[in-house]
């Protein structure tokens, strides 16, 4: 049997080697082979621990393979394959490499057995993913990418601080259940919650994702938030606050999604809502809830990926992403419309589609815990989901009249990826055992009970009825909705202003002062005697032609020249001072009663001369220089 290779390294190294291939077809085949290789490697290793390395005093565990890491890795590989297929036409190697490294580092996070390995892959993930935003190459994308990077740098620092404190407190660095309350776990949790986009730490997501490239957003959607769900399951299962945060964000996401005018920004807000279900499931912590979270993460990368692929196809075809500029696309892009509806029905939890097999699992867990508020919030978020994805987007983008859009048909690989992923959505919807079979926890669940199906159908049909009555409300205007990113965008701008105005001014003042000293030294040292002479001219202007000398560049004019060079004079002066000093301090071998008196007299005399010379050479010219400068300024 072949020795398994870490799936993360297949992607990371594979991505880095991609630019070496010269042929486009070869590159495309190579990109599709990578996830297949990783998949084979994943399934060639039984549960256990692989790839342990020593780093100083720590043993890094790069491969912890168990049912939990395996199901997430499986989901990541499926979506990586679909996303690579979707982006196969992209000709920029850098984009593809960033995508591969991002997928690889997400797999690294999933298999990390200790906190240090986790942190390393966590940071690679943040940096690699930012390039999928930068490669859009618009001004908005670069700005949003930088903000994205800053937020994730902050999250990474929180995680690192938490890990260091945790290791200090416990001596352990294994990545298992982290007992909330141990020092450092708060910061680890904060780092996780930033990546899970839990409000109010979520604003990076709807800020950056809609600015990403058409193909990059599929990767972004899949890895960052879902790996955050994975690490939350690993570390903080059953932490009650997560249940409340999750239910809150499920509703928050749909309410804000309703407000959006950009198709991918709407879907991005809806990612927050969907991750809310998973986070709530982690917070509940029962087996059925965890299975529900995992199944929902799996399903979500499929149907949300499908929705974003369709949105990307629309943007590719029309160049527009605002609802105010879209409409009537059903006639121009019927296949995209149908595939989008499959994704929309899946995400809304319509029976026979895959959303129905996982979302009610989390709700059932809330029901079993007898927590009616969480249950109602999650059902309500489901209503909102259908409202904004099942109804708002189709109504605004596909139906109605076309505002005269020019259509550039998306390439075959994009359509193929959309078809493949929608087939998976329906497959899991029809045959949920395929998904339930790989879930790690032992909790049986039957989605298709009559009561369940009828309840769900009632819910969705009446939501549809409600939305038909409220059509006028969901019509967008061309505007944006503020969010928590306001709290770092405006102060950030103030900070930039503060640095580039007051601080920069103060620093240029200081620089100007030292430049003046430098100018003086240059001016003076070129000819010290001239400067002294100039001073005299200034004092007795009648005797000399001050006007001429002052007005011209004095450094270039020589008025007086000493018989010996100035530098020689200076050297001589310093040598004399040194000689005298030597005679006094080092002259123990000299004897005689008068010697000290004589020596002090000579020394004192020389000191006086030196002071006079110093005054002539430095102080007087400095005043001269200053006066000339002032006159120049006054004249100017």
């Amino acid at each position, binding site marked *: 049997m072949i020795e398994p290779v870490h799936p993360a390294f297949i992607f990371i190294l594979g991505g880095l080697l991609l630019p070496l291939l010269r042929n486009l077809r070869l590159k495309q085949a190579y990109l599709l082979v990578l996830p297949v290789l990783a998949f084979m490697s994943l399934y060639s290793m039984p549960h256990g621990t692989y790839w342990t390395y020593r780093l100083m005093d720590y043993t890094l565990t790069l491969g912890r393979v168990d049912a939990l890491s395996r199901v997430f890795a499986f989901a990541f590989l499926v979506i990586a394959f679909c996303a690579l297929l979707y982006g196969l036409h992209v000709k920029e190697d850098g984009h593809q490499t960033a995508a591969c490294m991002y997928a690889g580092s997400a797999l690294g996070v999933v298999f990390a057995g200790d906190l240090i390995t986790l942190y390393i892959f966590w940071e690679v993930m943040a940096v690699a993913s930012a390039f999928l935003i930068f490669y859009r190459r618009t001004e908005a994308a670069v700005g949003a990418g930088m903000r994205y990077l800053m937020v994730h740098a902050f999250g990474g620092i929180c995680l690192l601080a938490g890990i260091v404190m945790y290791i200090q407190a416990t001596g352990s660095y294994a990545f298992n259940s982290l007992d909330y309350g141990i020092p450092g776990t708060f910061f680890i949790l904060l780092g996780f919650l930033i990546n899970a986009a839990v409000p109010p730490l979520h604003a990076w997501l709807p800020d950056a994702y809609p600015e990403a490239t058409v193909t990059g957003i599929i990767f972004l959607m899949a890895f960052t938030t879902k790996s955050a769900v994975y690490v939350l399951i690993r570390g903080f299962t059953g932490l009650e606050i997560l249940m409340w945060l999750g239910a809150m964000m499920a509703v928050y996401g749909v309410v804000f999604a309703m407000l959006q005018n950009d198709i991918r920004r709407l879907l991005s807000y809806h990612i927050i809502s969907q991750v809310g279900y998973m986070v709530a499931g982690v917070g509940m912590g029962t087996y059925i809830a965890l299975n529900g979270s995992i199944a929902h993460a799996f399903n979500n990368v499929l149907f949300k990926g499908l929705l974003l692929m369709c949105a990307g196809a629309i943007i590719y075809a029309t160049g527009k992403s605002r609802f105010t500029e879209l409409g009537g696309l059903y006639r121009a892009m019927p296949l995209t419309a149908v595939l989008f509806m499959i994704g929309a029905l899946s995400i809304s939890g319509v029976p026979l589609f895959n959303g129905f097999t996982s979302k009610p699992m989390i709700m059932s867990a809330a*029901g079993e815990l007898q927590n009616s508020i969480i249950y109602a919030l999650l059902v309500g978020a489901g*209503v909102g989901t259908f409202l904004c994805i099942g109804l708002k987007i189709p109504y605004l983008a596909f139906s109605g009249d076309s505002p005269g859009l020019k259509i550039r048909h998306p390439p075959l690989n994009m359509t193929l990826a959309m078809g493949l992923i929608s087939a998976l959505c329906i497959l899991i919807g029809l045959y949920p055992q395929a998904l339930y079979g790989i879930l790690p926890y032992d909790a049986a669940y039957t989605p298709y009970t009559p009561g369940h199906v009828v309840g769900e159908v009632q819910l969705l*049909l009446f939501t549809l009825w*409600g939305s038909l009555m409220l059509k006028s409300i969901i019509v967008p205007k061309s505007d944006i909705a503020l969010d928590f990113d306001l709290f770092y965008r405006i102060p950030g701008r103030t900070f930039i202003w503060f640095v580039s105005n007051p601080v920069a001014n103060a620093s240029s003042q200081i620089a100007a002062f030292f430049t003046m000293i430098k100018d003086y030294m240059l001016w003076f040292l070129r000819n010290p005697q001239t400067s002294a002479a100039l001073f005299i001219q200034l004092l007795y202007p009648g005797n000399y032609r001050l006007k001429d000398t002052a007005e011209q560049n004095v450094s270039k004019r020589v008025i007086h020249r000493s018989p010996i060079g100035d530098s020689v004079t200076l050297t001589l002066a310093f040598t004399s001072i040194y000689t005298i000093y030597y005679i006094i301090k080092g002259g123990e071998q000299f004897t005689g009663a008068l010697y000290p008196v004589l020596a002090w007299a000579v020394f004192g005399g020389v000191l006086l001369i030196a002071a006079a010379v110093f005054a002539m050479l430095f102080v007087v010219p400095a005043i001269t220089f200053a006066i000339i400068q002032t006159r120049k300024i006054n004249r100017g």
Partner: protein
Amino acid sequence: MNLEKLKYLFYSALLISVAAGFMVTSHPYFWWESLPAFYAVFGLTGSIIIAAASWIIGRYLVRRGEDYYD
């Protein structure tokens, strides 16, 4: 199939779904789940509440011009 027919089809689907709710046996977690047509009412009111809530939040709190950050 014209719009009128579609409308009738839709309303009959609403009725059928409510009627089906009386026929199936469910295993409710909460007492209010077993109320007749509970999910129909939830869907209707829920969609109105969410649409209204987002409209109010947008109107009075967060909607700004597209060049707000420029």
